[in-house]
């Protein structure tokens, strides 16, 4: 049983906050993740400037971006530690976003190639 109070029009059981934060990682993990993010960003910029990698620039950059995205979402946004339900909310939106992006690119690619 937990206490409830009124704030910002929300009924908020406080007990859950303490429960959730117990699962959050410590400062060391955060710093390590940030270091990875910095390295990955440096790799991205390097890939951009190296002509020899031009042929694979798109897949390499997409993989690096996906890795950064996942690190932030999992560790800084705590999806790795919080309820799977919250991950589901976000991943569903993300899935729809990818479907939309892919569909629009395909539909307009057809238009572009059949303009004449």
């Amino acid at each position, binding site marked *: 049983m937990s206490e409830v109070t009124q704030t910002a029009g929300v009924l908020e059981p406080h007990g859950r906050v303490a429960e959730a934060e117990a699962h959050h990682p410590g400062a060391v993990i955060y710093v390590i993740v940030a270091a990875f993010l910095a390295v990955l960003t440096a790799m991205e910029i390097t890939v951009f400037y190296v002509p020899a990698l031009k042929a694979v620039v798109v897949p390499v950059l997409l993989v690096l971006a996906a890795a950064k995205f996942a690190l932030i979402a999992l560790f800084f946004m705590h999806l790795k530690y919080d309820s799977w339900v919250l991950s589901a909310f976000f991943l569903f939106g993300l899935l729809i976003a990818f*479907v939309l992006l892919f569909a629009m690119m*395909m539909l307009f690619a057809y238009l572009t190639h059949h303009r004449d």
Partner: protein
Amino acid sequence: MAAQPKALPLEVPSYLEGGLLGWLTTVDHKRVAVLYAISTLLFMAIGGIEAMLLRLQLWSPENHFISASLYNQLFTMHGTTMIFLVVMPMEVGFFGNFFMPIQIGARDVAFPRLNAMSFWIFLAGAIFLHLGWLWGLLPNAGWFGYANLTERYFSPGLNLDFWVVGLLILGVSTLMGGLNFFVTIIAMRAKGMSYLRMPMFTWMILVTSILILIAFPPLTVGLVFLLLDRFFDTHFYVSLFGATPILWQHLFWLFGHPEVYIMILPAFGFISEILPVYARKPLFGYPMMVYATIMIAFLSYGVWGHHMFATGMGPVADSAFAITSMLIAIPTGIKIFSWLATVWGGSLRMTTSLYFALAMLLEFTIGGLSGVMFAAAPVDLQQTDTYFVVAHFHYVLFGGSMFAILAALYYWWPKITGRMLSERLGKIEFWFTIIGFNGTFLPMHFLGMWGMPRRIYTYGAGLGWTHLNQFETVCAFILGLSFLILYYNLIMSTLIGEKATADPWDGRSLEWSIASPPPAYNFAHSPVVRSRDAFWAMKYGRAGSRGVAMFMAGQIPAVPESQQAIPTEPIHMPAPSIYPVLIALSLMMMGSGLVIGEWRIIIIGVAALIASVVAMAFEYPTYGQDTHEIEEAEASSGGIDLRKAGLWAFLGSECVFFASLIATYVVYKSRNIGGPGAGILEIPLTSISTFALLMSSLAMVLALNAIQRNKKNLMRLWLGITIMLGLVFLGVEAYEFAHFYREGLSMQTDLFGQSFFTLVGFHGFHVSIGVLWLTTVWFASFSDKFDKSRALSVELGGLYWHFVDIVWVIIFTLVYLMQQVKGA
């Protein structure tokens, strides 16, 4: 009328009691629902009068009853009003608000102030749409606003300015509502109410809310592009500059078709509640109905292209959209047959509500069958833009949604007002509606097949369309008369109607377990749900099979003690707030300033908006002091904090918003004509700002870590660093924009410029909101009450901040690092 079970012995103050200020500042979901009801009934009358005028104009060939210009305005406003101001807000805002929280055993929605804000912003948007009446400049390009007719060059007046801004405001309201309902259903169900015990109407509201969250962002993006085109001389939809008006159609119908299901799913919910009650049978195939709903929602996001067969999307896309459009008939068919099976063999009570519900099954099926015809691309090409389409969507939205709304109105009115509607008047109204509706819209199928185009102001005398048009006009007035009877019935019931008992229909769900009208707190004690049809099981036992026999024998069911009790201790309810009204007024002020080109009004509106939002954040200084124990919120939320759930759902919706912007950028990058193009982007400079933003995320989590350990000063330090790094990012972005401008790249230069500035600018706007949010938290942290228990406030701001960061990860890669890669 059948014998009614005895009234529940609840002597409690109704939620309706209270003065004008109480209604203005209310956050009670039932009052908000009533505010929606009054507004939507008013707009329904306006939309109906507009339809009458349209029908009078089409009475005879070469008619000049109204001008062509006014005709365009009337059909545009009729469609916009009925969709955005009547059907959707009536189903979700009115019925959803009133009954969904009660059906799940909650005392209110998850975010009551957001709920009130949703209504007041809805009203602001609705009034804004109608402001054009003052100058005779109503929107005039159809409810779909096809580009490039909507461009300033082709539509120079203020008409469409009201439309664009009004719809943007309404979109904000709808998103708030969808988010609120979604979190409420996920996290506030009573103990024991598992997903497969939820009433079907609540299921429909849940799925509708999800659709709102993913369908409205593309519309918002499409409207923003149109707004930029009209006010800032960009060319998102102007083919002369390499752009394509087809972009609008994609963005609009990405919203538009799910919108059809946003309007029909709650109607399905009404029918699923009403038929079992009047048939005295459980809903047939409940699990299949749930799965069918989910399948409909899933497919509804993949059928938008069937509105665009005539645009030439190519055989592959046409085939894909045709298949998904045909597939959606399967889950819909499951629903129709389940309803028929529910009624079959039931002990029917032929109330007005049941009349409308049964009629809905027939009328909607007719509309559904003509809908399947459109799924076949070759057939669609013959029928598109004819009156056949008008007939189809009126059979779906009037025959489906409106018939269901009327059924729901007769069903739930006693609970809302505590008074019965006249059954005699209701049945007269029903027959007028049936005759008027079918007489008006059935002949439109034939006129369409004979070639009568839709949206025409008048027609030639020798085309053979005259008699059917005259017949339709007569029937439209019969239909109009049916609504006059309805309004009369509503008014008379409110004034002198027979008093309703708590459970006049021998209902099955929890709303019938409380007084009519309900008390402000809904439940004296939170109910415990032990089966589907929760109240039926409370009355008749878990199996509920004794119910029909007892009712037929005139026996009074035993009312469970838990439902009879009055509160024995004070119940803590959300306090009223004036800020929802002020925020809506601020938005209206901003919109007005934009339309009339008065920047000072816009600035005042923005300042008022920021002030209201910040003041609302500090509205309850007694935080943490006035407490009591509850158990119900623990029941089904799975330990998820409501605010966190709400924010994550919002971020999911934001993904779709940014995907729409990014898709436009990728498409337009390859179509760019002239201008500096993507080669102007500077990687070294942007790398610095990217690094700053990434490190700001580190500072943010360290701030959270500090407050979780109750180290306030350390928290303030890290939060301050986060804010500073955010400002560095914004500063570099401002420098970059200014530099590009000097180099000749602006929003007006080319397709690259407009899509780049819009995408990156919107991200910058999000960063600015994040800075404002974190600054508010930083100042709040100086309060003595701000300690470890407020860590969630920091975490929520942090979640938003990290989201802005990951969006930038994508933008940095796609826009900057892939600048030499050709787009779609």
